[in-house]
């Protein structure tokens, strides 16, 4: 099922921060949403989440830092039960086991506060909570910025591997075109509250049309390694 939304927009304090936007995200695709900070990426995400939730489509969002997803005063077990209750599902140890194995969290005690775990593990826990909802769309917000690169790369691979089996669509939101290009087949470029360009990754890298996309492509890589 392709996720399709029309006329997403947002206005704050009389200023349009998201111009009317139509999106269509094919099932199981990996899409990168790219733009500098302040270009409206987060606004688009939150508008999309609200719209999909209103239509009854399961969508999950993983913020860039675990601090934005977990209460430091509450145990991980509490967060897990709370997520189950919010979804209205009965405790399902088998499903929990599957998710924890998929994200390499098996064998850990959940009766600790989040900060007893490393940030990488916390982030994987947050992703497990997100996947508990069996979302049609999973949004990863700047998935690398709060983690060390080795851990971030491993986490992304685990997530991609898992959702390839479930047919979940993945939206990676980032300011870093290099990251999006490395992980997504399709790219959307945002600039000043508009999606100014969308194309397959290879096409956009080879022939950027809009000037924001051209500038992102020009600054894509730090360096090219010899083979």
């Amino acid at each position, binding site marked *: 099922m392709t996720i399709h939304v029309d006329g997403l927009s947002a206005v704050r304090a009389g200023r349009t921060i998201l111009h009317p936007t139509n999106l269509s995200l094919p099932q199981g695709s990996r899409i990168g949403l790219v733009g500098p900070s302040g270009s409206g990426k987060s606004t688009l995400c939150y508008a999309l*989440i609200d719209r999909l*939730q209103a239509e009854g489509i399961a969508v*999950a*969002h993983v*913020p860039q*830092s675990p*601090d*934005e*997803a*977990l*209460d*430091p*005063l*509450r145990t991980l077990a*509490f967060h897990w039960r*709370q*997520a189950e209750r*919010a*979804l209205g599902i009965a405790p399902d140890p088998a499903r929990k086991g599957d998710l924890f194995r998929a994200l390499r969290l098996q064998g850990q005690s959940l009766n600790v*506060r989040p*900060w007893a775990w490393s940030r990488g593990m916390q982030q994987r826990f947050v992703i497990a*909570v997100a996947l508990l*909802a069996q979302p049609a769309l999973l949004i990863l917000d700047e998935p690398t910025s709060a983690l060390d690169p080795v851990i971030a790369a491993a986490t992304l691979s685990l997530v991609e591997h898992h959702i390839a089996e479930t047919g979940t669509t993945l939206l990676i939101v980032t300011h870093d075109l290099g990251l999006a290009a490395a992980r997504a087949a399709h790219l959307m470029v945002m600039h000043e509250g508009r999606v100014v360009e969308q194309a397959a990754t290879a096409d956009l890298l080879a022939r950027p049309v809009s000037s924001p996309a051209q500038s992102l492509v020009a600054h894509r890589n730090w360096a090219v390694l010899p083979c």
Partner: protein
Amino acid sequence: MNGAAELLLRSVVVLSGTAILTFILLWHAPGDPALTIAVARYDSVVSADVVDRIRTESGLDAGFWTAFSHWITPLLSGDLGNSSVSGRPIWPELRTAILLTLPLALMGLLIGLALSIPLAILAVRHPGGWIDRGAVALASLGAAMPAYWLALLLILAFAVKLLWFPAMGTGSAAHLVLPGLTLGLGVAASLTRILRSALLEAKGAPFLPALARRGVGPRERAFSHVAPHAAIPVLTVAGLELAFLLEGAVMVEVIFARPGLGGFLIHAIQARDFPKVQAVVMLTAILFVTVNLLTDLLYRLVDPRIGTRDA
């Protein structure tokens, strides 16, 4: 160092510091305590012999360290000593005073909590809205208004004009209303400000939007997440609030001519009955240390990061 041991050690240091400091201050207080005691005791002009006898009897001539050890040794086994004026043990009289003050303090605390909690919760619903601004204005007014002035206003309105409650004295529950209200309004003013800012900060916690997106309802967010986070700064100032409550109670008692700790302390000071003054000071110090210990323990219960952070 072990957390519990550190807390206990800190309490011991505070208590011994208080004991030594009050003793030094009272020892160096101006005037001749022996003369004052003699006047208080015989209520007339007394001869130098009598004053000297009292000086020896009360250990006032023995020098600082002897006097200090005479006082501190029984204190360590829980004996507050005898009044230097009447010669009778201090504790029974002090206990009576405490039992008179306790209902007033509790009443003040109760009124304070009953007013400030709903007011703060309403205020932070719409920060900057008219309820919020009203609450802040009321709290500032309450903090700026001295207890004696508020007490006079209340007496004027409810005792003199409306004749609803008695203005002075003690005896019935109705006697407790105006002093309780005076104290409670002051407590409410300071608690509202603390609660309001604690709630505002807790409501801005970075993880709350994610919980909402996960489908966690507003009730659960408020009770399971905002409330514990707001409790931390409130606990921090619990000791200060207690100070406010005690100081307020003593002042309110004097204004409303209620017997209690306030009267006990003032009479003791006027009569230069230093053992009594010291007893009150030590009791207050013990109360504070206990409250701070409890706060620290509660703190660790609510936020286990405290105490493990350095590990």
